[in-house]
């Protein structure tokens, strides 16, 4: 998926939870939101983007993504492609 779009979506989520003064809690909340509502392929892509430097991601979002467990690469494999 378009990584720029994912970065925008992740930052939008981060902007809501960033109102929490406790930034550790804020990062946990962002990570929880991503874990509960993002399809695995989206999580896998944003994790990879974060590992590669996370261009465009807010700091609090980068911290949150770092909390996400790795996502197995199984569901979006296309047979015979």
């Amino acid at each position, binding site marked *: *998926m378009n990584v720029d779009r994912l970065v925008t*979506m992740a930052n*939008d*989520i981060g902007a809501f939870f960033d*109102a929490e003064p406790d930034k550790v809690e804020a990062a946990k909340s962002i990570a929880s939101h991503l874990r509960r509502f993002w*399809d695995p392929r*989206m999580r896998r892509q944003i994790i990879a983007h974060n590992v590669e430097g996370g261009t465009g991601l807010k700091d609090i979002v980068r911290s949150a993504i770092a909390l996400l467990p790795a996502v197995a690469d199984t569901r979006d494999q296309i047979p015979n492609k």
Partner: protein
Amino acid sequence: MATPMACAGSASGAALIGGELGIAFRGIQYTHVASGRQRVCDTAKERFKLDSTRPADFRHAHAFAGIDRTPALLRARAVIRADAPSHDPRNSPEATADITGVDADLVRRAARLYAKAGNGAIYYGLGVTEHSQGSTMVIGIANLAMATGNLGREGVGVIPLRGQNNVQGACDMGSFPHELSGYRHVSDASTRASFETAWGVKLDAEPGLRLPNMFEAALDGTFMGVYIQGEDPAQSDPNTQHIAAALTAMCCVVVQDLFLNETAHYAHVFLPGSSFLEKNGTFTNAERRVSPVRKVMEPRAGLEDWEVTMRLSNALGYPMHYRHPSEIMDEIARLTPTFAAFSYEKLDRLGSIQWPCTDNAPEGTPTMHVGKFVRGKGKFLLTEYVPTTERSTRRYPLLLTTGRMLAHYNVGAQTRRTANVTWAAADRLEIHPDDAEMRGIKEGDWVGVASRSGEIVLPADVTDRVRPGVVYTTFHFPETGANVVTTENSDWATNCPEYKVTAVEVIKVNDPSAWQKRHRELIEQQLQFLRGQAVQK
């Protein structure tokens, strides 16, 4: 800036602070006092743990803490954190007026009207949700209702006015890509296990894609097919050209609808739909009221919607054996705790039922949150203001908002085929006289509306119904293509498109837009296909 005021409730002996809301409740005789705030805070702390340091929320929490006229009902209902500051100038009506354009005094009067209503209910529509911060606004509304004690009894509450007749029912039944019926997350192993046992299949514990993400994934080749029932994203979803590209990229698009809608132009398979007069089932409205829908005529296409779906499933190798929608409802009751005591027999006998309908509430639950919330204590959430990134610019100086008119229903698939077109036969662009004059636009002129997504052309309606700087149109007519200009911006939590804010420029023109010309060609091509005529290149 107004000084927060304190109020001591004499009827119940409890105190409340209404802050700038001036909270009062039916049944409480109260007097405003200039002091006593800390005493009230301490009292509140005994009952609540504030989960918010947002000053506005803390004020609301104080107000809620004072609701003591029915202590058994409302005491100890919310979570309050003790370290919350009591006031922040950023949240004063004067400060927010600079952003909202709403006069501070008007905000105070509205707040007092709501707080002093005795029973206050908030009904909101898509003007709240179709923003990048729509969810935040809904959370703020919930905070306010909780803070003022307007939840958990008859005549109060927060009620979304849905955009369609069965949005609530679809949500209840797990149409979200992350939930099973009854709002249970797919990661819940016990819930999944109950469905796996009933259906004989393994279910994924991961959330799926939302509609906008499906289209994104289609464009990168990881989302290959879709089955669309009674929905027309090619007309209703934002950035039409993006949607068309995504639908074109898919290997298999199946559309089931009453009419050959815009999305059907991209379908590999079209299946007939049935109207509400031609099928059995239920619709659920925003007060959780499930109402029966009973067939009054045989489906003109031969099958009810559920029968079409069942035949498709059987053809694909997963057999379904339902003989009537009542059997599907029986399955819902077996698998969904909040519908455990539900049945068609009961529904027909009672006329309608508000869920939860359980052994403890066999005839349904007219009022939710009585005594306590589903999660236990209410939770105040922070609602920081985050402006949309879609801003007017020198290139796009106006803000477009889209909506509906009374004569037509959403994409107009049904209403455009009726005499309703007598009242409205086209989408029109409402533009303020000042903005029109500046651009040399007169009533009825054809105008081009351009955004960073695309351009459309439609007739102008010069009117002071819209404010200077704002233009408005509907999306009922496909030839207009209103969503050609709307953008991919969406709500942070739900991805509901931000239909209410698109930066545009409007100019007087003579010709249809390039998209509209291509759309006409597409429609003509499709009609030729339907007539069995060869298409001339």
